[in-house]
């Protein structure tokens, strides 16, 4: 069995990091994405509660 | 809101006498302090610490001893089943005042023991402004007691009493602890005590604000 090459992983994340470092606008976009994910997660929770209500009635 | 001095002092005397008779809290607390200080000493293992770190350790020990000591305030009454008896006997504000008095006394003694043990065991721990240092320890203790008294009343009504106490207390106490640590640093390393004035103001206003709010809110916590 071979483990994933740490070097490769490191390089990959490194380029991603560098990309974000050089293109600041994408940092802002990442942040907007995080906020959307948070709101989506909250929506899912409400959805679950409504589904529970539907099951009952 | 009627606060009578007499009921409060009666409750305070009762608590002191009860504590001296049973010694549940006192013995356990003393051991707690000894144990936590020895853990600090073991981890230091004879090295000389920087004063900042020693101050941090001091406040950690003070915080956690207070956590284990104050939590019993109302839980003890709840366990004995005497809560309703007290509810019948006096107004909520005098109960709060009595318990607050007892906690103030307890924490002042506790902090004095902790600080003396620290001074004895940490040889290189020199204080440049002893007067300010003791004032900060006293105010810090008062602050901890004032905030934790009402939280102790809250947790007495909840299920997981002991573990809940530090969880609820820490966020409320954090402004106090930060100001306290900063003032202690001034007392230990500073050259003038004037540098600690903003911190002292913060400590005093914190105590005033928290005690006033507690008096206003205690009714709702105390009565079912």
């Amino acid at each position, binding site marked *: 069995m071979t483990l994933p090459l740490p070097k490769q992983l490191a390089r990959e994340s490194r380029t991603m990091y560098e990309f974000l470092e050089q293109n600041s606008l994408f940092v802002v976009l990442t942040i907007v994405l995080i906020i959307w994910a948070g709101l989506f997660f909250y929506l899912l929770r409400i959805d679950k509660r409504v589904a529970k209500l539907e099951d009952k009635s | *809101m*009627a606060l*009578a001095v*007499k*009921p409060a002092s*009666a*409750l305070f*005397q*009762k608590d002191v*006498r*009860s504590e001296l*008779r*049973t010694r549940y809290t006192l013995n356990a607390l003393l051991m707690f302090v000894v144990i936590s200080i020895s853990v600090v000493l073991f981890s230091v293992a004879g090295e000389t610490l920087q004063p900042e770190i020693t101050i941090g350790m001091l406040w950690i020990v003070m915080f956690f001893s207070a956590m284990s000591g104050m939590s019993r305030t109302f839980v003890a009454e709840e366990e*004995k*089943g*005497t809560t*309703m*008896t*007290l*509810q*019948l*006997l*006096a*107004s909520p504000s*005098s109960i709060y005042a009595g318990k607050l008095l007892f906690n103030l006394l307890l924490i002042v003694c506790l902090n004095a023991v902790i600080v003396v043990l620290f001074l004895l065991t940490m040889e290189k721990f020199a204080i440049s402004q002893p007067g300010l240092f003791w004032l900060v320890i006293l105010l810090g203790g008062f602050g901890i007691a004032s905030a934790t008294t009402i939280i102790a009343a809250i947790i007495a009504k909840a299920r997981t009493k002991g573990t809940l106490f530090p969880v609820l207390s820490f966020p409320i106490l954090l402004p106090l602890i930060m100001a306290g640590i900063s003032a202690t640093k001034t007392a230990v390393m500073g050259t003038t005590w004037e540098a600690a004035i903003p911190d002292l103001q913060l400590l005093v206003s914190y105590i005033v604000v928290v005690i006033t709010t507690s008096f206003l809110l205690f009714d709702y916590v105390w*009565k*079912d």
Partner: protein
Amino acid sequence: MTGITVKDITQRFNRRTVLKDVNFTAEQGKVFGITGKNGSGKSTLVKIISGIISPTKGSIAFTRNGEDIPSEKRHEHIGLVGPYLTLYEEFSALENLRFFHSIRGLKYDEQQSNELLARLDLPTDRSDPIAAYSSGMMQRMRFAFALLHDPAFLFLDEPTSNLDTDGKNKVHGIVRELSAERCIIIATNDYEDFVLCDDYYSVDGSVPALLEQPAN
């Protein structure tokens, strides 16, 4: 006039309604009874009246000699006997009484306390903690706790539950003696207590075993 007016008391507990719109008046000179099956809310009602629980809705007015007593002063005028009241077991009887006296802001008089203990058939010469007392003695200690400050309003919740016939008679004697000048409320399911009452309120509509009256 000395008395209590209970108005529209409603108590909800975990969204269940325990008491709904309770209304009654209890006056000095008459013994008022609160009845109902076990778990129907008798004790809750007594606790609400004595101020231990604040009700979800409604109000209670206390009047002494025609004057209203504000809620923060009521604890000075209320005496309560109930199974849920515990005394400080690490203290002796007299120490307990002294604490109750001083927390109410009253002057402690050892002579008076001793007389009260003697009247309730409790030992006056014991200085050991009351933890060692039997349940009957403890019940009598509760009476000492309730009667100590000579309250105008006396609430008795299951007052005879732990007592033998002698004790019961004693309690009944005390109730009769005190009822002339005080407002007494008894919450009970016991027929012998119930016959003392001049008027009653039933929490759930039931009345203690009227059919099982003793032979006499």
